[in-house]
């Protein structure tokens, strides 16, 4: 298949404009870490390979902002800014697999730090995108505080490559913490929710509060700050049965959290959002159902945010699909498939959200000929039948 491999925004715009007639269907790819997300893309006439679109455009450590080409892996950006004691406050599992900044934006991915810093939606302060006709459009800018114009980055957040190509991204940076300690508290889902809620309201300002299931049920509390401050807060957090982890132990625990989101070949990985207080019951239901179906599950939940990632393994493909259907029944449009190896059908999405008309209208305005990412949203964008 033809691959367009631009290394600058101009090349990208030109390549897309020039291929409008010859290659009407395009699939945008980065390092391929999100191929399993959503529904499978339909065959395209060419891929838009963004892995050549890399590099830092402008880094201003004193302003704590960095502009990068969208094909740059997040891990590389982290390396660059770490030298100045800074970081992008985002820790998605896919970062370790060299996921690109553009890919992370298009998938709305995030890791345990979402508890304190949200997702890329909350960290991107400017974007440049290329539309289906090659138009290059910028929104936002290089300053953190900016309300001039519409924020196109929001539309592209979670767009799975169906609106256009993210070409450049400007990120807000945070100071890298001087000290980090993780405390592990053995806890059922219910107890974990209570402890996490208590910690949030006590003002201890945990950077991450991740409840994990499989093999043991536990709550991981990550504290970040100054060495003395963290030591003080660790004492506050540590209750009966809590373990203050060594760096190696902590690394192992957080790797396990990442592994849940990535999964293994043959697994199904699903992420869903729910009201925080509804989390324990929802998770209990999933585990019970998985037991019935003879499936194994590991879970990682950002408790205060109410975002849960569930890795389903073993059992029959049909059972994976049953479990997904059950999630769709309960959590409707707020369910995203992150890995679909285990599914025997391709219906990755649940019932569309009430705002689906707006989503379709956006798609229609931005990509009226449906050049990009056909199939990724399945029936939601209904691209084969034409758009309303």
């Amino acid at each position: 298949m033809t691959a367009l491999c631009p290394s600058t925004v101009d090349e990208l715009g030109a390549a897309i404009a020039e291929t409008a007639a010859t290659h009407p269907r395009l699939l945008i790819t980065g390092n391929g870490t999100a191929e399993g997300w959503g529904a499978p893309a339909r065959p395209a006439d060419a891929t838009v390979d963004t892995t050549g679109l890399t590099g830092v455009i402008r880094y201003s450590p004193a302003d704590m902002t960095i502009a990068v080409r969208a094909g740059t892996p997040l891990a590389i950006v982290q390396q660059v800014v770490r030298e100045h004691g800074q970081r992008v406050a985002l820790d998605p599992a896919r970062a370790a697999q060299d996921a690109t900044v553009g890919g992370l934006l298009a998938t709305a991915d995030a890791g345990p730090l979402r508890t304190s810093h949200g997702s890329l939606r909350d960290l991107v302060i400017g974007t440049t995108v290329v539309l289906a006709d090659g138009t290059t459009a910028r929104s936002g800018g290089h300053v953190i505080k900016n309300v001039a114009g519409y924020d196109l980055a929001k539309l592209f957040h979670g767009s799975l490559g169906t609106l256009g190509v993210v070409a450049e991204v400007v990120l807000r940076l945070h100071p890298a913490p001087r000290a980090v300690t993780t405390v592990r508290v053995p806890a059922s889902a219910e107890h974990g929710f209570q402890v996490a809620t208590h910690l949030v309201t006590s003002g201890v300002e945990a950077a991450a509060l991740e409840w994990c299931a499989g093999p043991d049920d536990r709550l991981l509390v990550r504290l970040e700050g100054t060495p003395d401050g963290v030591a003080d807060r660790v004492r506050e957090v540590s209750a009966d049965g809590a373990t203050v982890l060594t760096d190696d132990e902590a690394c192992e625990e957080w790797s396990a959290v990442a592994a849940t989101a990535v999964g293994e070949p043959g697994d199904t990985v699903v992420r869903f959002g729910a009201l925080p207080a509804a989390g324990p019951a929802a998770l209990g239901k999933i585990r019970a159902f998985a037991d019935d179906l003879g499936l194994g599950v590991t879970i990682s939940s950002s408790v205060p945010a109410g975002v849960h990632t569930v890795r389903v393994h073993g059992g029959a493909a049909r059972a994976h699909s049953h479990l997904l259907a059950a999630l769709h029944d309960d959590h409707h449009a707020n369910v995203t498939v992150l890995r679909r190896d285990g599914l025997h059908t391709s219906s990755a999405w649940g019932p569309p959200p009430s705002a689906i008309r707006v989503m379709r209208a956006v798609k229609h305005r931005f990509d009226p000929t449906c050049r990009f990412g056909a199939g990724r949203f399945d029936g939601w964008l209904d691209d084969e039948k034409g758009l309303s």
Partner: protein
Amino acid sequence: MTGDVRAEFVAALGADAVLADPVELRAYECDGLTGFRVVPALVLLPRTAAAVADAVRICARERIPFVARGAGTGLSGGALPVANGVVISLQRLRSIIEVDPVNRRAVVEPGVTNLDISRAAAPHGLYFAPDPSSQQVCTIGGNIAENSGGAHCLKYGFTVHHVLSADVVLPDGTTAVLGADSPHLGGYDLLGAFIGSEGTLGIATRITVKLLPKPAAVRTLVADFPSVEQAGDAVTSIIAAGIVPAAAEMMDAVAIEAVQAALDAGYSRDTAAALIVELDGPQAEVDIQFAEVRQLCQNHGTTNIRVAGDEHERALVWKGRKAAFAAVGRISPDYIVQDGVVPRTLLATALTRIGELAAAAGLRVSNVFHAGDGNLHPLVLYSEAAGELERAEELSRAIAELCVDLGGSLSGEHGIGTDKACSMPRQFSEDDLATMALLRAAYDTDGICNPGKVLPTPRLCGEKPGVHRPHPLEAAGLIERT
């Protein structure tokens, strides 16, 4: 507008919810920016979300432009009415529907004031983080339209970071829920695009906001500096030290004079700049970092540090800061509040250039700003009676455009509205603006929702935006411009 349509509004909303008296309509002809005035054909005051939808449905069917209005505190003319259009005031949708302390969120109607959300949450030890200076007046609906920040947004972000979902009436009169119970949802971030759209994409009628726990500790100091530049350098050094203050605010001598005239908030009258730094968070972290902040202020030549000893003193510091704009009314008959952003490292450059521009124009400029994020609020002082209005407007515009030229933005929080729509081509290319227009058209096909705001229109801006060039998709007949 025909009498039939008016009768239909009356039938749908009730007679007391439709204002048509010419005198009453005049009171709605402007918002907080009084330089732009347009008298609407009608003002509607619906009491329920359903009534808002009814009103918009009639507008959509009749192609009547409508403008949503909260408390009318906006400073960019975002709620400026449209001639022959209607104003939909949300001031009767003021219920706090629910405060949910377990999930730390509140469900409110759009006319609830920003501060009332925090008041309702206070018994649970929670609050709503965005705190624009007008928080006791401005409404959450308006905060959503403008993506309001406030003094504490350096650490806590803007309205977009604190709204989970909103029931909206779309410009065709249909309703949809944008966002969800958690930040994870499938598909485009339609709520994120809606927030900050300045009322051009629809009307939010029921909003779920996040509430944060009150920080365990808060420390506030006011440091005086012999120059604004030194104060700016102090801020840069604080942030370079890896400290994210909850707030870092600065006022120059003119602003301090005004604040002290309005209320004695304890600021030193004989200093060139006052820097307010507030830290909050866990007690241990705050104590350690507060000592560092004091040291850094000293390193940069502070002449006096006043630490707020208790909650009362802290409240007074903030009361002074938040009243600064309006207080300037005491020392100048007229003034324009500008709002621009520069990269923080260029603060000193920007202030020098603003001083030069002001000197050239023969006018005084006072600077009040959010130093932590480079958001400047130069106040251009003038006297309309002395015929200085035009010069003041020119100076103000020049300052905003200076911010863009320095790599910043036309607006950090007041919005583009009517005021700056014609300056948008300075910051964005035609393609950028045409693409933004696509977003707008996706929500508002007929262009009836707060038309004339945000994006420049040839009618408003004359020749300024340059020759109209059709968007390629428009040329291909795939879209139409609204």
